[in-house]
């Protein structure tokens, strides 16, 4: 039997029971649509998170005080609330002398109370130098950034994240207004561009930046740093720069045994690979859950095909009597179930794409600050079609086999 005729015959019997065919397909439609939706939303989430990490700036290396025990992804002691004072001015000087390093920005941070007029809120303030802004790719929306000179002169100036600026000033122009931070008066010199969530969920737009010297001497009374951010020279790869920084710091801290390092170096690549792993596992996991509905849909198809084989026993007998082989009959029923699943899969992909588009539209229109990206992976479409085709074969083969092996005499006698 020609494939063309087989497809025509199959299409005809599917269209004869339209409602049944549609209902049978529904399981596959829902299954494929949910796989598509979860895969593409997972992909979007992954892109979003990775973009945020990339936002940190290229060739940025973070140095945190304290050693990291265990794997390279476990958190150093300093991030767990333990105060470690090992990163100091000497380290910054030594790093600035290192040729593979372009800029070095030490930073301290703490929570403080910030007041303008009647507006009063708690803020995380960061004390740092002028180099911080180019290293971290922080753009200025209004006014100017902090400068290294502000640091030398202990100028009482502040640069606000755009959200904290909105909270304090609303529609007013904040430039040259004075705010109070933990009782000390600062002049607002600049407002940052919207930056979005940073790595690990820190919202960069709610931070306030003041000169490092002011923070250390007048607010905190400390002489160590919480983080040193380093911009490496693009010419060198991150691995090389990391090893250079390690040896500079070990020399500076008189460490000979690498197991006794009192600092931790983190790069954007570390964060990217960690988050990349986490999000792709998450996406896969979601897709696996969604594929359960595919299996259910497939079983539905198998069920209906078995019913159809029984109902059409006489037809099978007649076709066999006039010359159809077991293979011809098997082919006809298999094509029917594959057609069902492929059409269902296609509809599912279309519905999935529609919902993904809608989610993108809603998120980008009403929650634009999230920075949701549209992702509709072609791989999901290919996978969807492939999976539905395979489901048609897997769940159609048994009923088709049953049909093919029917004895023509019994089939013709069947009432």
């Amino acid at each position: 039997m020609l494939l063309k005729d087989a497809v025509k015959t199959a299409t005809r019997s599917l269209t004869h029971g339209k409602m049944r065919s549609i209902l049978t397909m529904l399981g596959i439609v829902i299954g494929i649509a949910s796989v598509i939706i979860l895969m593409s939303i997972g992909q979007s989430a992954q892109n979003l998170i990775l973009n945020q990490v990339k936002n940190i700036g290229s060739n940025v290396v973070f140095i945190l005080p304290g050693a990291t025990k265990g794997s390279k992804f476990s958190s150093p002691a300093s991030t767990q609330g333990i105060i470690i004072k090992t990163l100091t001015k000497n380290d910054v000087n030594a790093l600035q002398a290192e040729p593979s390093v372009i800029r070095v920005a030490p930073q301290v941070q703490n929570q403080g109370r910030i007041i303008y007029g009647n507006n009063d809120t708690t803020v995380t303030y960061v004390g740092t130098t002028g180099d911080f802004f180019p290293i971290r790719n922080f753009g200025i929306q209004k006014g100017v950034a902090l400068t290294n000179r502000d640091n030398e002169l202990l100028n009482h100036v502040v640069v606000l994240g755009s959200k904290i600026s909105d909270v304090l000033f609303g529609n007013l122009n904040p430039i040259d207004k004075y705010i109070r931070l933990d009782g000390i008066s600062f002049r607002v010199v600049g407002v940052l561009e919207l930056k979005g969530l940073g790595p690990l969920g820190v919202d960069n737009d709610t931070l306030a930046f003041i000169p490092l010297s002011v923070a250390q001497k007048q607010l905190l009374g400390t002489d160590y740093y919480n983080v040193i951010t380093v911009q490496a020279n693009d010419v060198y790869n991150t691995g090389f720069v990391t090893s250079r920084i390690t040896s500079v710091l070990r020399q500076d801290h008189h460490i000979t045994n690498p197991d006794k390092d009192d600092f931790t170096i983190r790069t954007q690549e570390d964060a990217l690979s960690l988050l990349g792993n986490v999000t792709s596992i998450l996406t896969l996991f979601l897709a696996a859950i969604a594929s359960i509905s595919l299996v259910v849909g497939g079983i539905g198809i198998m069920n209906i095909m078995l019913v159809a084989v029984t109902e059409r026993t006489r037809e099978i007998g007649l076709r066999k009597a006039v010359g159809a082989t077991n293979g011809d009959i098997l082919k006809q029923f298999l094509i029917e179930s594959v057609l069902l699943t492929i059409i269902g899969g296609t509809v599912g992909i279309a519905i999935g794409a529609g919902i993904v588009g809608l989610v993108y539209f809603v998120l980008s229109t009403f929650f634009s600050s999230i920075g949701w990206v549209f992702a509709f992976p072609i791989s999901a479409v290919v996978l969807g079609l492939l999976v539905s085709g395979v489901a048609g074969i897997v769940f159609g083969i048994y009923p088709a086999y049953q049909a093919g092996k029917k004895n023509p005499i019994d089939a013709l006698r069947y009432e």
Partner: protein
Amino acid sequence: MIDIYDLKKEYTEEDIPTQALRGVTFSIDKGEFVSVMGPSGSGKSTLLHIMSFLDRPTGGSYKFQGKSIDEMTDQELARVRNKDMGFVFQSFNLLSRLTVYDNVEIPLLYSDIPPKKRQTLVEEAVRSVGLEEKLYQEAGRLSGGQKQRVAIARALVTDPNVIFADEPTGNLDSQSGLQIMEILKSLNDKGRTVVLVTHETQTAEFANRVIRIKDGMVESDKFITANNINRKNFK
């Protein structure tokens, strides 16, 4: 054309063997019109099923066009059924939701006749049973007689050497039954071999040979020289 020697068929149902055929022997030559007669349970249907390659014997030999059924695979049997045999059933076995055209086309779908030629063959076959005006009507809407004529057209469309008809008039009124028998008769007049299974004497009389089967054996095998067809009081 058909050579049957000591043909046996045993069924086993729930461990109890039943002998449907207990050694049947006869031959049918090309161009004969043979009626196989017998009461229900005589084994005539079983005989027809074996002759028409829908079933295999459990003993004896059966050669169709010189080739033994035992030497052929199921696939080869299907091939012969398609090419050399035509079937007419008591209950028509049309696909009621398909048109007359599509029903008659079915055997061609399983043949190696190129699609271009099919339309001519279908139209010719439908014309030969006088239903060309109903070509695109749904088969389910036709009268019983018309349905059986469509079934005959379907049996003819591959130009087979033999037509097997299993009680073709059983579900028809006498007028339509007569019509069907006339068609079968005319097919035989044009040289086709026709094997008819029936339990009605009047129907059987259209043939030029009557084989009576009883209890799985040939009871009598008679040639009818002068056809004595009673068309007025058919049935």
